[in-house]
């Protein structure tokens, strides 16, 4: 088992080093949710204090509502960004280097996935710290209980990115991923509005949101911040992680080939 963990450590460290070097990426990753929080949410401040839905026990400000959704947003962007870098890696060849290591592919992909998830989690905690300084707080224990939820959601979104990266042939196609994956996933979820509010405007919209795995990732984080487990969401996220993971392993199956080489 030892080589497995040596490789795991190396891959995670490399991801972390790359992330630290790209300071711009770190700042961008934080600025995005903070803009939503301070500009978008502040405008809607009192608009949502109308209904109490679990896990909340009392009326909440809209800002409080969207924080878990913004945590999800960080992880969503990060998952896609890491898939972007996978496509880039493949064009540059360092993906080849990784895949020729004498370890099973699923393990190598998992290491990559874990690396990007850990980076997502570091970003989420930084975001939560800033939110805390702004006055948006959760029970102290919630910051701990949210960790498994973040890991699971991060793995799910990372696996989605991984799966996508195995099917995207070129870097240029990535803009399409942004339009057709990130935005629908984010907007058609419970990140910005609770599902009951969606149901008020359209049943169909509500149903789409209810099957969106991202919704369940967000709900998982939301409940975990309040030291609660949302069983339904947990199952959804697990199922989605397995599906995306399987798709990624299939996508990277050597028997399928990668892409037509130019040489």
């Amino acid at each position, binding site marked *: 088992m*030892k*080589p*497995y963990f*040596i*490789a795991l*450590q*190396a*891959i995670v*460290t*490399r991801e972390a*080093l*790359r992330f630290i*070097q790209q300071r711009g990426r770190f700042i961008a990753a934080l600025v995005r949710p903070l803009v939503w929080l301070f500009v978008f949410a502040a405008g809607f401040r009192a608009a949502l204090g109308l209904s109490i839905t679990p896990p909340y026990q009392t009326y909440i400000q809209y800002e409080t509502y969207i924080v878990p959704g913004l945590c999800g947003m960080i992880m969503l962007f990060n998952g896609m960004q890491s898939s972007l870098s996978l496509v880039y890696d493949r*064009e*540059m*060849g*360092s993906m*080849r*280097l*990784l*895949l*020729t*290591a*004498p*370890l*099973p592919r699923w393990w190598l992909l998992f290491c990559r996935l874990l690396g990007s998830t850990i980076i997502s989690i570091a970003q989420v905690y930084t975001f939560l710290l800033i939110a805390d300084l702004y006055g948006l707080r959760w029970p102290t224990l919630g910051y701990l209980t949210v960790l498994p939820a973040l890991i699971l959601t991060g793995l799910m979104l990372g696996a989605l990115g991984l799966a996508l990266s195995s099917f995207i042939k070129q870097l240029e196609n990535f803009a399409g991923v942004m339009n057709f994956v990130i935005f629908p996933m984010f907007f058609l979820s419970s990140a910005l509005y609770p599902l009951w509010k969606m149901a008020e405007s359209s049943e169909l919209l509500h149903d789409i949101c209810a099957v969106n795995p991202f919704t369940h990732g967000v709900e998982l984080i939301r409940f975990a911040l309040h030291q609660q487990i949302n069983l339904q969401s947990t199952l959804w996220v697990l199922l989605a992680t397995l599906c995306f993971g399987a798709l990624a392993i299939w996508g990277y199956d*050597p*028997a399928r*080939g*990668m892409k*037509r*080489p*130019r*040489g």
Partner: protein
Amino acid sequence: MSLSVKGLSYAYGAKKALDDVSFDVASGTFCALLGPNGAGKTTLFSILTRLFIAQSGTIEIAGQDLSNKPLSALKQIGVVFQQPTLDLDLTVYRNLKYFAALQGLSGTYAENKIMESLEKMSMMERAGETVRKLNGGHRRRAEIARSLIHDPKVLLFDEPTVGLDAASRSAITKHAHALAEEGYTVLWATHLTDEMSPKDQLVILHQGAILANDKAKNITGDSSLTQTFLELTGAEA
């Protein structure tokens, strides 16, 4: 036999990239795989490194069957890809350390191996420099050093001299020949005819099939290699 390829075929859909390719390379041999662009060299390398799996044929690396025992076989391979694969912002040492870990090597053992390999490629004094600061020739040498860390038996070099100036090219070619003399099996893909010596093994690949496989001097006879190559491939030079 250190590298043995038998009846290898691979097609992208209807288009055949490799058609019943077979050749052997013995230990301590420098084998040049010569072919024009599009001959199937990169496909062959992708299959040898198990990025793809061939539709038919077998590959043995240092006695290990690549499809039955892929991980043991991969352990015996050191690769330098055509595309650069170094992390530009990391030092040479860190890049090699990362690779060592992918091979399951760590601690002082890995450190010693890294130093040994760098020494072999006369790259010791560059260990602490970030890759971005190195010139093309040194980057390639760092990659060759990297391919040696885990003591592979077979070295696969896919057009490693592309984009280098003449001096760097000859230095690297010389290094590769030295490695073969040390006992490594070297498979060296190229489309340049001046990178091999007459006593090297030469495999000429054209449109996915092998046109010739022998000692270079036996293939060329009295004419120049360039001349022979052009004749064989019928290329419009």
